[in-house]
Structures are given as C-alpha cells and as structure tokens.
C-alpha cells in the first residue's frame, strides 16, 4: 500500500498507488491517509484511479477516514473503477461521498 500526496490549488490530492484496498491493507491505508492529511486544506481528494478492487473493509476504511477528517476537512473521491463504483452504489455510499470523474474534475470544482 502506497499513497502519493500533492497540493493542487486548494485541494489536497491523495493518489492511492495500490490495486487493492482490502481487509489486508485497510489499517495501513488509514494510517497513510492520516499521516498525509495533517497539514492539508479543507478539501481532500482521494484519487482511486489505480484501485481495481475494494472490499467492505476497504470501504469501511474510507468511511473512517472521512469521519476522521470531518468537520474541518471534507473527503471527496475520484476516478472510481467500475467494480469500485459498484461497491459504493450497492452500499449507498455513493449518496454519502462527493464523487468526481477525474482528479481534474475534482480540482476544477474548487476553482469554480
């Protein structure tokens, strides 16, 4: 599990560099996000482009991170693969998170 962090305008972009967020990597994922958002701005964009598999533990970890960052910071998501997207819709978590098509979309919303 690896995570790249960068600042784009006022958005902190976290790109997951791992194909899976699952029960085996959920705790490491949470720790990495925590470490990389201590000085981030009010909007954190989690880029899932390289993730092709997420299970309920991975989903739970993303929900945990959202709760951890709130209320001062808001976690948004982008670039969901079809199966990842399906997990979010089946659990209705697509109603909870703001989900963007791409990093560019997520960042341009901030400018607008």
């Amino acid at each position, binding site marked *: 599990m690896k995570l790249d962090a960068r600042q784009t305008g006022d958005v902190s972009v976290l790109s997951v560099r791992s194909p*899976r967020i*699952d*029960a*085996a990597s959920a705790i490491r994922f949470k720790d990495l996000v925590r470490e990389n958002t201590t000085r981030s701005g009010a909007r954190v964009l989690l880029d899932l482009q390289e993730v092709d*598999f997420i*299970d*309920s*533990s991975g*989903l*739970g*970890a993303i*929900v*945990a991170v*959202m*709760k951890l960052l709130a209320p001062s910071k808001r976690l948004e998501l982008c670039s969901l693969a*079809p*199966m990842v997207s*399906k*997990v979010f819709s*089946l*659990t*209705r*978590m697509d*109603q*909870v998170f703001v989900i963007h098509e791409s990093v560019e979309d997520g960042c341009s919303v901030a400018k607008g």
Partner: protein
Amino acid sequence: MDVLWPKDKTAPADYGQDGRIFAARFSPEFIAVRHELQSIRTWAEDMLSKDDLDRVSLVLAEAMYNIVEHAGLTQGQFITVYARYALGGLTVMMRDQGKPFPDNQVPAGTKPECADFPEGGYGWLLIHELSDRLTYHRTEFGNSLTLFFETEVAGGAYPTINKQCPNFSLNRPH
C-alpha cells in the same frame, strides 16, 4: 480428491461429467486468503466473464476475510475451499472449524443508514447482493458455507439450466 460431486447432466462435455473443480486448503491469514483469491481467479478466468469474475472475487474475499476475522481459528486450523464450475454456474463451498455464526444463521447484511456512517457491516450486504444463492450448515465438523453464482455464458449459446445449488457430500470431513 475428497469431494464427491453430484452427478448431473448439466456439465459441458469439455469439463467432463463433474465440471471443472478447484480445491485448496490454507491458513486463516489475510495474506493466504489474498493468494487463494488470485488462484481461484486464475482458475476461473477463461470460464467466466469479466463482470462475473469481479463479483465472484469480491464475494469470496468478503466470505474468506470474514472467516479470518470472526471464526476464531487457531494455529493448525485451516480454511478449505472447493469450487466447481459447470454449465450455467459456479458453486463455491467454504469450510472451517471455527465458531458458528450468531444464532447459527448467516448475517443478513443491512443497508447502512446514511445518518451514522458505520465503518463496518457492509460485507454481508455485498455477499447477498452479488451472489445468487447461499446456504449455510453448521455440522459437527464446523461451518460450511456454499455460494452459488449463475454465470453468463459467452454468446448466450447455452441455457442456464443448473438452477439448483448442488448438494455436497464429503467422504472425509477435512
């Protein structure tokens, strides 16, 4: 092979009377589960569509990780997985010697309420939503969970006729 597979007339000739079979036994650890998930995916790759492979992979991951996290298996105990593909469907049976489910019933999996954002409890929801049939038996040997997936057939050339979750019988427990 420990498993006596039910004889039926639905198995395509290519896979023989018993269909195509996968069997594995492994330690109740995350890393071992991940390895077996990849092995099953590789085994099933040329039989299932991408969509079916994806949902089967997710359901099996949920069910196996659930055993690792909640069955309370100790060192020297194993998870056993048998999978059988025959025309129209994939059946996967998992056995372990761990604790039974609460009330000896598979958890229902409830849709989380948006208001409280629980961090867990999505696993069984996904298992129920993405599998086509599920049976659970608690025996003197432990837990036996059987999952059935009606799978797409390339080109829709064959009717889906294997609608029943096959009965498994073992001549040896493990």
